[in-house]
């Protein structure tokens, strides 16, 4: 939808509805902070990927704060070893998250394991909601060792989330939803717009194939403009709350 039409607000309403259900909700309010080079990043020489330890730890902390009640009922299906820490089978997932929050060096690994375990559980469905999802489909502000800009699939956290959006990884019970945003021009993604059918691809231009592959299978949902009754309702709300003088 266009700017200001209410995509982020609709996403927030979806999240609120899921929280009341109850579902486990993993919400990213602004995907830009994942890719704008504001958090430390370290190269993993084995996999040639970059991990973001502090960002992973902060994200785990936020998820734990929202879903603490539901996560206590979910237990791990096997033993895990994270650097020096060992988490036993059948211990609650919260223990794993606490390790990731306290020790930032094992936070990325803890996050991957957490998503795996959450996806396997059948008690509570999982909602992964991302606002400004187009930031994950553009080149990041992080640079590689040779000073070239990194693609989002080179960052382990972004790649994990893109895997869920492309269907490579799945929740047993759950949903994945994203909202576009046109507010930040550098992060408007041509490949994503082409995959969703918003823009016709030019036969003369070359588009990055790896990003197009991550956008396959996404269902488009258009948010229309305000209708007259909706606009009247919003203005009545503001008048009642005395934000606008009558």
């Amino acid at each position, binding site marked *: 939808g266009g700017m200001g039409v209410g995509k982020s607000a609709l996403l927030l309403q979806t999240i609120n509805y899921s929280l009341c259900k109850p579902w486990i909700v993993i919400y990213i309010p602004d995907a830009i902070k994942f890719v704008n*080079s*504001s*958090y*430390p*990043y*370290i*190269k993993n020489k084995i996999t040639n990927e*970059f991990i973001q330890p502090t960002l992973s730890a902060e994200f785990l902390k936020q998820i734990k704060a929202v879903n603490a009640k539901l996560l206590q009922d979910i237990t791990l299906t096997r033993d895990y070893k994270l650097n020096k820490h060992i988490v036993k089978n059948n211990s609650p997932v919260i223990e794993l998250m606490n390790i990731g929050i306290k020790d930032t060096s094992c936070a990325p690994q803890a996050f991957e394991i957490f998503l795996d375990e959450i996806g396997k559980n059948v008690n509570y469905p999982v909602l992964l909601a991302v606002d400004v999802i187009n930031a994950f489909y553009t080149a990041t*502000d*992080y*640079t*590689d*060792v*040779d*000073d070239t800009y990194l693609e989002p699939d080179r960052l382990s956290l972004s790649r994990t989330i893109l895997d869920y959006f492309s269907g490579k990884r799945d929740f047993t019970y759950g949903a994945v939803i994203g909202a576009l945003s046109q507010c930040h021009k550098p992060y408007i993604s041509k490949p994503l717009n082409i995959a969703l059918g918003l823009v016709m691809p030019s036969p003369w231009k070359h588009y990055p194939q790896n990003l197009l592959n991550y956008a396959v299978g996404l269902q488009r949902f258009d948010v229309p403009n305000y209708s007259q009754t909706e606009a009247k309702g919003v203005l009545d709300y503001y008048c009642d709350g005395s934000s606008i003088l009558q």
Partner: protein
Amino acid sequence: HKTAQRICSKFSIHKTCRLHELSELQIQQISLELSNMKIETDLKREVINNIMHHRSIGTYKGKRHVMGYPVRGQRTKTNARTARKLNGRWIKKEGFSTLANSSNGVQLSNPTFISLPFFAQSRLFERLFPR
């Protein structure tokens, strides 16, 4: 100028990193990298030497530095302020002692340039009527 960005990318330092967030290893790596580069006085000496070289072999560029005019073909009818401020300051500092040893280049024993009349060189008009 992207030297700083290139060094930060080499050691995976993100753009909003503060100094206290750097690890000891990263600081050591940066110091090692800087010690292998030409910086500070060495670089300044190299720049001065390059300008002096032009002066001593009598090229067009050397003459422009001496006169304090733009070197790279910019206009002088208007707007040559930065060139006037910055060009040729090394030459004036070093004096003209190097010219005694120069080979067939133009022999300038005093600041006036031969083909221009005296009052143009002293830029009397600009001194009396500064902008």
